[in-house]
């Protein structure tokens, strides 16, 4: 009897708790995949939601059905002015049949203007409290309007926008032209006493820098990647590009680093696993020598705080492979190889020093040197009293790079080109 009652209660109990207060069906929500925040006109902030509709193509043939058929993604963009994210969400929810859901939010885009006006603490930092938005959400500072950026943000053909964005951000540590920054980094960065905040810089490329007509280029090439998003001379492909980084002092954006400078920064932070670099050919300056480099050890950072000005010493250990030699000079020989090694070392030292000077001007330790300096302090009050972020602009940097060429690609050596003109 007792057992029977228990079994009956156990069987009946699930029926009473199935419709608990938080139960939702997957179709109850409108999934926001990207969100833009900028200054509003009729209220404090203008918030743009990119809502993706994830559904299978209805017109697929029999072969596609049930076998991972082609995905058809439709986007809806909703923009509204509001005093806060929560107000915007509730107003939008009142006007659509679904409920906005941020569990699949992949990127939050802030306009450069908003960032420069120091509104991060007001508009973005409070978002970490909002339970739907994950701390792993990527953050981008965009040139121009965030609304325009969100509208131009399209998936790679045949892919979901969420996957496109995930893959795009993963490129950061293998290319290094932009940092991979999340909401967690943003929040840590604006509150940190160790270092300053850096965020990914993005823009809509309007193809203005691409010149279709004109004379052929002559002279020495600039350092590859020495520009910001929106200024890349290209045509076609995705309209949106991520390139360079936005540097902050606290919650206020102080300036930008170009793609190349961001590479230098990530190299000094030990966050660039490998990356492509091109140096001017030491013997034919109008040509380039592209090299694939790899950081084989974490950077060794020493900081001397005994004098008024902090003295920072960074040692990098790298190795790499020559990707191509445009000049055809036989740099593969052991005697000539050191020329390339020295040239790359000097190139990186100069690059890191330029980036460091720029960050000093911004008064922002985005190199994270503070995380090394803090090791010389015993207590938090001592550390906070020293005020590392205040001392950083006075600091001096010495960089040492030890670079070794390991391989020379698919060619062991270069034979001279043969042409009749040269024979004459």
């Amino acid at each position, binding site marked *: 009897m007792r057992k029977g009652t228990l079994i009956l209660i156990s069987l009946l109990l699930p029926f009473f708790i199935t419709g608990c*207060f938080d139960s939702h069906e997957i179709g109850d929500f409108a999934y926001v995949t990207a969100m833009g925040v900028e200054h509003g006109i009729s209220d404090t902030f203008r918030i743009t939601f990119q809502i993706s509709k994830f559904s299978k193509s209805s017109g697929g043939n029999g072969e596609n059905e049930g076998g991972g058929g082609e995905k058809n993604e439709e986007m809806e963009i909703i923009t509204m002015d509001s005093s806060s994210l929560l107000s915007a969400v509730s107003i939008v929810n009142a006007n659509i049949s679904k409920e906005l859901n941020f569990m699949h939010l992949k990127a939050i885009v802030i306009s450069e203007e908003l960032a420069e006006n120091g509104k991060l603490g007001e508009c973005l930092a409070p978002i970490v409290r909002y339970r739907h938005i994950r*701390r792993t959400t990527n953050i981008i500072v965009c040139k121009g309007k965030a609304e325009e950026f969100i509208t131009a943000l399209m998936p790679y053909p045949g892919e979901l926008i969420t996957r496109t964005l995930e893959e795009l951000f993963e490129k950061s540590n293998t290319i290094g032209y932009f940092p991979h920054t999340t909401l967690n980094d943003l*929040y840590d960065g604006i509150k940190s006493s160790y270092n300053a905040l850096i965020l990914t810089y993005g823009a809509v490329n309007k193809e203005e820098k691409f010149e279709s007509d004109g004379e052929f280029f002559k002279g020495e090439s600039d350092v590859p990647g020495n520009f910001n998003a929106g200024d890349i001379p290209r045509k076609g492909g995705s309209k949106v590009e991520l390139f360079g980084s936005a540097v902050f002092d606290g919650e206020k954006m102080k300036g930008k680093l170009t793609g190349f400078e961001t590479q230098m920064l990530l190299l000094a932070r030990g966050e660039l696993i490998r990356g492509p670099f091109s140096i001017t050919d030491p013997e034919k300056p109008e040509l380039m020598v592209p090299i694939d480099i790899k950081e084989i050890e974490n950077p060794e950072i020493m900081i001397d705080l005994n004098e008024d000005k902090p003295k920072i010493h960074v040692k990098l250990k790298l190795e790499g492979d020559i990707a191509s030699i445009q000049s055809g000079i036989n740099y593969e020989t052991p005697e000539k190889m050191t020329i390339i090694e020295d040239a790359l070392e000097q190139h990186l030292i100069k690059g890191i020093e330029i980036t460091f000077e720029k960050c000093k001007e911004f008064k922002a330790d985005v190199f994270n040197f503070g995380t090394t300096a*803090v090791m010389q*302090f015993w*207590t*938090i009050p*001592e550390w906070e009293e020293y005020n590392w972020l205040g001392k950083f602009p006075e600091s001096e940097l010495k960089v040492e790079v030890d670079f070794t060429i390991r391989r020379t690609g698919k060619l062991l050596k270069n034979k001279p080109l043969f042409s009749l003109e040269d024979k004459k």
Partner: protein
Amino acid sequence: MIREGNFGYHEAISLLAITILAKTFFTSPAILVGIVGTAGWYMTLISALTAMFGFMFLYLLLKRFPNKNIMEIADMVLGKLGSIIFLFLFGGFLLWSASISIREFAEVLKVYVLPQSPPSFIIILFLITIIVLSFMGLETIARFAKFIIYILGVGFILVFLLSVQNIAPRYLFPLLGYGLDKTIIHGLLRSSFYGEIVIIGVIASSLQGYKEIKRIGFSTLLIAGFLTSFSLLVFAMIFPYPVGQEITSPMYEMAALIDYGGFMQRMEPIFLFLWNFGTFIEVSLIFYATLMIFCHAFRIDDKRPVILPMITTLYSLSLIPKSISEVTSGFVQTLRSWGWIVYYVPPVIILIIALIRKKKGDSQNA
């Protein structure tokens, strides 16, 4: 009538270790960072050592009265009235701490997972499980703890291993946090974190003698101390001290930060599993210990009729705090800072009185 039954070394350690460790899943780590900064991970070791010192007196008391639990010892040493007063205070304190754990659990669950559900709904569902476990008896709770500890252990290791990607060891600096003096003072005070170890005195009759109790007590404190320290160490290496003190449930956030690309992210469900089952065991044990104390104090042999009224009391107590802030900065903070008075001082007093009044139990081998 519910039989307490007997259980062994592994069951008892599982039961007590889970009960102590479940608290790391809630707001305590964040509050700790606010107090001692980066020094929380070794401050808790000071607390564990202090708890061992406090436990030593309980052990000496249980050794003096073999095969007796703390309630029986109190009867013998303090007399009927003195014993009732002590048991009433001790039982009341345990019930209050169980109510705080339940409310903290419900509030944190509401913040992260069930925002629409009223706290009472979450608490009632939770209490139904406690009722079932209580009707099953102490032995069942202990055996369930032993069964679940392996699963919880795997989940615990998995969450920490996967969090490696977010670790920055330099966040541990400055090593002394807000100062060594603060770390030591709070380390001593917060020995209350390990205070549930004194429940061993309540369940002593179910264990295999005072030598076993000594092994169980010290092993539990060593394991719980090490694992708590390890959890706080990982947490301190993931969240820098200015941010760490703001987070409602640092361990949940830590699991939520795990992201190895499209196929390995959103690991919080593993944490939720640890969290729920850990708290079930924690509250079940504390509640059952309270039940045993009250039934002893009022000479009630059958505990079953007392379970529902006491659950109702527990439910009502858990609804007293107005908000999560009152729970975390008021009740939990008071419990962690001053709970040691109730946990560790009474056994010392009883032992001293026993020595003065020359009260002693029968020899274990007699």
